[in-house]
């Protein structure tokens, strides 16, 4: 009669997939992700790529040395962000700005102590981050050159001065042959982050959904008929698996939308520039991600099902699931905090606590280097507790679905279990 498990599953899935709420939410989320996926490209398009350099005016004849320095600096750049435009007099600068001939203009003020004039960039909006930071950098360069010209340094020495310091961080690994590079580390952190958030959302949204559905079945009394046609255990697992598959379908759609957009040619180049390459993901890490995701999901889902089964009215559900919600929240926040300190004692302890370990253990595998026995021990505890909690939840479920009226206390549930002989 494994048919009935399948029947419950497909019924749950059919109703979820058909519901308007689900369809709308998936479409909206997918659209958001498409926008987010194209965001780096869009930002670049909107800021830098809006057709040539920003025109910045200056009054001809003022501070010629500085202006010439700036000009030659920008001339050397392959993509100058700023184009300097000479305007006859200082008075005409303002009208040129008003007409839109220039985006802004520079004014100078002597500063004998600094040996370099004070420069003011005047523009229509004070929020011209890109242009002003470009100008600051250029002016700094010009000032360097001006000062260095007097010091009589050779061109080679100047080049040495200008060259940026080469600095890299590399994590030392004791288990692998070579440590992870910064790029791999970055990808690992990103993946950890994504997995933790996805697990958190899956537990919060899908878990709640499972609990709500079960309570709704109870409060509409349809439960009485269902439990007389199919064993409660099959019904519970059918519900959990059905909702899980729906959540998976949703994730596949969303991740698919994101990845499809990220791998579009215009996006993948930008991502490569950021040092973000999807192909550098460690396959072992992905396997761990999937394992801990599933483990975390089923651990919490059975608990939500059990809670849902003992509540008779949907109004009371929020209060009843509060402890589990808190557990998830705590696990989530410890994990977020732990991203920066993956080796703190708190993390090492929490990696063995079943309700937190899906978050914490995976995080430590991703960003720290836990010993293999730590991982094995943590996974062992996790699997054991999933089985134990699944078993206990099934028992609670068995009696919970038949108990109506006020929410039963722990004592009443135990009593009912004895009476029902489950």
């Amino acid at each position, binding site marked *: *009669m494994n*048919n*009935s498990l399948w*029947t*419950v599953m497909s*019924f749950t899935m*059919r*109703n979820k997939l058909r519901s308007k709420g689900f369809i709308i939410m998936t479409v909206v989320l997918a659209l958001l992700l498409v926008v987010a996926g194209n965001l780096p490209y869009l930002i670049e398009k909107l800021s830098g790529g809006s057709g040539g350099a920003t025109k910045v005016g200056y009054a001809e004849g003022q501070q010629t040395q500085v202006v010439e320095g700036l000009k030659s600096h920008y001339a050397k750049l392959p993509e100058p962000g700023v184009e300097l435009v000479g305007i006859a007099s200082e008075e005409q600068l303002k009208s040129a700005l008003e007409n839109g001939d220039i985006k802004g203009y520079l004014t100078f003020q002597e500063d004998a102590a600094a040996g370099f004039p004070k420069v003011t960039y005047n523009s229509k909006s004070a929020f011209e981050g890109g242009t002003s930071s470009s100008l600051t950098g250029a002016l700094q360069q010009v000032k360097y050159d001006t000062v260095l010209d007097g010091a009589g340094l050779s061109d080679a020495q100047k080049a040495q001065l200008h060259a940026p310091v080469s600095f890299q961080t590399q994590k030392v690994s004791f288990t692998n042959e070579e440590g992870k590079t910064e790029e791999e580390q970055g990808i690992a952190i990103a993946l950890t982050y994504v997995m933790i958030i996805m697990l958190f959302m899956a537990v919060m949204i899908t878990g709640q959904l499972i609990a709500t559905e079960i309570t709704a*079945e109870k409060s*509409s*009394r*349809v*439960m*009485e*008929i*269902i*439990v*007389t*046609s*199919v*064993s409660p255990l099959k019904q519970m697992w059918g519900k959990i698996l059905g909702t899980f598959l729906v959540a998976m379908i949703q994730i596949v759609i969303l991740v698919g939308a994101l990845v499809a957009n990220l791998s579009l040619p215009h996006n993948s180049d930008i991502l490569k520039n950021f040092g973000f390459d999807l192909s550098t993901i460690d396959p072992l890490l992905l396997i761990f991600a999937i394992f801990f995701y599933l483990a975390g999901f089923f651990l919490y889902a059975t608990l939500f099902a059990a809670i849902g089964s003992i509540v008779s009215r949907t109004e009371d559900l929020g209060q009843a699931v509060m402890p589990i919600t808190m557990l998830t929240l705590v696990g989530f926040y410890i994990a977020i905090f732990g991203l920066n300190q993956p080796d703190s004692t708190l993390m090492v302890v929490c990696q063995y606590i079943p309700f937190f370990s899906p978050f914490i253990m995976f995080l430590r595998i991703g960003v720290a280097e836990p010993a293999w026995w730590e991982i094995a021990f943590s996974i062992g505890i996790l699997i054991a507790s999933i089985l134990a909690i699944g078993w206990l939840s099934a028992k609670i479920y068995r009696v919970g679905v*038949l108990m109506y009226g006020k929410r039963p206390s722990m004592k009443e549930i135990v*009593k009912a279990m*004895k*009476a*029902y*002989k489950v």
Partner: protein
Amino acid sequence: MNPLKVDRIIKNYGDKRAVNGLSFEVAAGEIYGLLGANGAGKTTTMRMILGLILPDEGDIRYLGNSYSEQQLSMLGYLPEERGMYPNIKVSEQIMYLAQLRGMSRKDADKNLKLWLEKFQVPEYYNKKVEELSKGNQQKIQFIAAVIHKPKILILDEAFSGLDPVNVELLKTTVKELRDGGTSIVFSTHRMEHVEELCRNITIMHKSNPVLQGPIKDIKKKFPQERVIVTADGKIEGLDKIPGVRQVILHEHGGYELKVDSPAVGQSILKHALDQGPVNRFEVLEPTLNEIFIKTVGESHE
């Protein structure tokens, strides 16, 4: 062999005994009445028959077999508190419930259409349950209980909350199912339905079966204590006849007398005939309602 055989079942909830040594059998094509005041143990008994809870002692046999998951598909259940998925189409949920009972989707669909046709509401196929009136929801619920052609059907308060037309409709359907060979356990507080439908009954009181057997035999155990006599004119001195305890004058003529024994009826008839022609004379057997109140009410003292 009877399809349903309940043998001395006992169920305790903690210290409280919910059902104490109840036995009965339901033959094929029989409606068995399970009566009792609220909290007498009827629901617990039905839940045990449905296999939701196991009896502490005793045994329930389905066509000779003990309870197992295979029996689930031959059981049908109409619970006292009606419930369906409010915002799912009638066809979807009936087919779901039928599939859970082991039917194929195709058969379920065919049967559902037949039933909707029978109840003259084929247009409900694509409607959501919340769009239907309460009485019509009940029809759908009834279909859900019988769509898989159960051999054993349990009806808990099947006709409550229905208008007389729909009660008649469902009653006819229940009789048809009975004639088709279904064993039906029927629980209700409406005694006139029991008298009309049931062959055998059990009256439960405070977990104990206090009165059991065929309705005819049960009625014989209770003395015939009521006499109705009607004449054109007044009948004087009825209250003077020995053995008459009470005389009630009915609004539209006629007297109802409470008597000590059925034999008193003869002297009442003689007395009435002496005063003129008698239109109606009847020694009434007790109604089930009276028996119920007497059985359950008296042991309350």
